[in-house]
C-alpha cells in the first residue's frame, strides 16, 4: 500500500471509515513527510506534532466507540497563519503580530475541528496576506514562488504534508497558489464562509476557502466550513446544496463561456496551449463551450477592487501603522501609505462601480453556467521575491463569485498550470460539478512533485 500521506483526502477518509487505515497511522505518515520535506519547502510557520498525535488517538478511540464525525474524521490539515487558533501563535507572517496568541478559534477552525479534522499546524502566509512573500518554496521547483498569499497552504498540500488546508483570498490568494503548486483551490462566494477570527486584509473583499488535491476534497472541506455565523454579518444562511452529490451529475447540460478579452492578454505560450487543450477536454465531456462577451463595466470593476483593497487595507492597519511603521515590510507599507491618500468619495464611487459590474456579471451568467479561463497568465515565476500576479483571479474576488482552480497541465520544465472555473453567486455546486468532470477526464491532479 502507498504511504498514507500520498492519498487524497477522500481516499484517506474512505480507508479510515472502512477500518483499513487508522487516524494515527495517517497523522504519523503526514508528520514523517513533514520531517522529510519541510526543510526544503518551508510551508509551515509552526507545527504541533504531539498535539496532532494526541488528537489522532482520541479520534481513533471515538471511531471504535461508534462516534463518527463524518468524512473529515481524522484528516490532517494545515491552517493559514492568519486564522486565529486558540492557544497557538497567530502572527500573520508579520513582525507586528509576532507572539500574538489568540484565546479563541476562527469560526472555520472551530467547524473543521467539530468535523473531525486535525490541525497539524499553521502554514506560512505573505505578510498580512498581502504582497511581501513568505519563505515558502514551490514543491515543483524550489527556485520558484509557490504563489501567495496562501503560500504554505498550497505548498503543504502539494508536497504531501497534509491532505487539505485552508487559505484566504482578497485578490488571488487561494487560486494563484493552487495553480502554481498543482493542487485544487476553491474561493467560495462572498458570504458563504465566515471570516470571523481571520486577520482581515480588506473586509468587503476577503474570502476564506479550502485547498486540497481533488475537487471532491475541496467540496468536502467547504461543506464543513460553510454556513451562517452570528459573529460575521456577511456570512449568510443561504442553504448549501449537497456538494459531493452534485459532483456525480452529468455535465452535459452545462455551457461554459470563454471570455472575449482580458483573460487573453499576456499569456505564456505554455498556458495558452494548455488552455486550448483544456477547452477540448471540456467539449469532449459534453460541456458546450462558447465565447462569452464580458460586460463593458468589467475592467472598471476590476480597478474598483484595487482601490477598495488599498483603502480598506489602510484602514485595517492605521492604528498599528501610527506606532509601528518600521515593523512593516516594504510592500505592505506602500499599500497602506497609498491607501491613506484615497478620498472617501473615491472609495464610495469604487463601491458603486463594483456594484454595477456585479449586476452586469449576473446578466452574463444568464447565458452561461460557468466562465472558464486560465487561472494565471504564466506559470510560477522564478525567484522568491514576488508571489506572481493575481490579475486573473482578482475580478472574481471583487465580484464575489465562486471560483475554482483545477490542475490543467504542466510546462515543458515541469511547472503546474491551472484552469479557472467561475460560477453564479452561491452556485459552487455547478462550478465543482464542471471541475470534477474535467478532473475525471485528465490525470494532472495525480502527479506529485519530485521531492
Amino acid at each position, binding site marked *: 500500500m502507498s504511504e498514507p500521506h500520498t492519498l487524497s483526502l477522500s481516499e484517506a477518509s474512505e480507508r479510515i471509515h472502512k477500518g483499513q487505515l487508522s487516524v494515527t497511522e495517517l497523522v504519523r505518515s503526514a508528520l514523517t513527510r513533514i520531517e522529510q520535506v519541510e526543510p526544503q519547502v518551508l510551508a509551515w510557520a509552526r507545527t504541533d506534532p504531539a498535539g496532532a498525535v494526541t488528537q489522532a488517538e482520541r479520534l481513533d478511540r471515538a471511531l471504535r466507540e461508534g462516534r463518527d464525525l463524518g468524512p473529515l474524521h481524522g484528516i490532517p490539515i494545515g491552517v493559514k497563519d492568519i486564522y486565529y487558533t486558540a492557544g497557538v501563535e497567530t502572527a500573520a507572517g508579520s513582525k507586528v503580530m509576532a507572539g500574538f496568541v489568540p484565546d479563541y478559534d476562527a469560526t472555520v477552525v472551530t467547524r473543521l475541528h467539530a468535523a473531525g479534522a486535525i490541525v497539524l499546524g499553521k502554514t506560512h502566509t505573505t505578510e498580512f496576506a498581502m504582497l511581501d512573500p513568505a519563505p515558502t518554496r514551490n514543491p515543483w521547483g524550489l527556485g520558484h514562488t509557490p504563489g501567495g498569499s496562501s503560500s504554505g497552504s498550497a505548498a503543504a498540500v502539494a508536497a504531501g504534508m497534509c491532505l487539505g488546508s485552508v487559505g484566504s483570498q482578497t485578490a488571488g490568494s487561494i487560486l494563484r497558489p493552487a495553480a502554481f503548486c498543482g493542487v485544487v483551490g476553491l474561493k467560495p462566494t462572498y458570504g458563504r464562509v465566515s471570516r470571523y477570527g481571520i486577520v482581515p486584509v480588506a473586509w468587503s473583499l476577503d474570502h476564506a476557502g479550502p485547498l486540497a488535491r481533488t475537487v471532491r476534497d475541496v467540496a468536502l472541506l467547504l461543506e464543513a466550513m460553510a454556513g451562517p455565523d452570528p459573529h460575521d454579518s456577511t456570512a449568510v444562511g443561504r442553504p448549501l446544496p449537497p456538494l459531493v452529490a452534485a459532483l456525480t451529475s452529468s455535465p452535459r447540460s452545462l455551457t461554459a463561456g470563454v471570455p472575449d478579452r482580458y483573460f487573453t492578454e499576456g499569456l505564456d505560450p505554455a498556458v495558452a496551449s494548455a488552455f486550448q487543450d483544456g477547452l477540448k477536454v471540456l467539449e469532449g465531456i459534453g460541456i458546450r463551450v462558447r465565447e462569452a462577451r464580458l460586460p463593458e463595466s468589467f475592467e472598471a470593476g476590476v*480597478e474598483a477592487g484595487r482601490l477598495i483593497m488599498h483603502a480598506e487595507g489602510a484602514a485595517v492597519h492605521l492604528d498599528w501603522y501610527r506606532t509601528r511603521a518600521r515593523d512593516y515590510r516594504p510592500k505592505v507599507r506602500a499599500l497602506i501609505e497609498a491607501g491613506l491618500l484615497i478620498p472617501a468619495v473615491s472609495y464610495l464611487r469604487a463601491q458603486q462601480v463594483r456594484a454595477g459590474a456585479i449586476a452586469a456579471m449576473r446578466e452574463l451568467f444568464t447565458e452561461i453556467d460557468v466562465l472558464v479561463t486560465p487561472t494565471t497568465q504564466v506559470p510560477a515565476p522564478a525567484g522568491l521575491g514576488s508571489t506572481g500576479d493575481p490579475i486573473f483571479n482578482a475580478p472574481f474576488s471583487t465580484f464575489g463569485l465562486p471560483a475554482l482552480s483545477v490542475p490543467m497541465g504542466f510546462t515543458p520544465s515541469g511547472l503546474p498550470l491551472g484552469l479557472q472555473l467561475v460560477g453564479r453567486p452561491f452556485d459552487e455546486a455547478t462550478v465543482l460539478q464542471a471541475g470534477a468532470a474535467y478532473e475525471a477526464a485528465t490525470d494532472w491532479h495525480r502527479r506529485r512533485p519530485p521531492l
Partner: protein
Amino acid sequence: MERSEQARRWICELLRVPPEPERPGEPVDVWPIVDRALTAVHAASLDPFSEPALALRLEPGDE
C-alpha cells in the same frame, strides 16, 4: 512644495501617521496602481444615485 505633497503631509498629520518613516528594504511605489484605479473609477459612467456595494445588516431587535 507641490500641492499633492502638501495634501499628503496634511493627511498624515491629520491621521497622526509618520509622513516619512524609515524605509528598511526596497522602497515600493504602488501609487501608479492606485492612480490608474482612481482614474478608471472616476471615468466610469454611473448613476450617481446607485447604491455602493456596501451593506448594513440589522437583525430584528437592533432598531
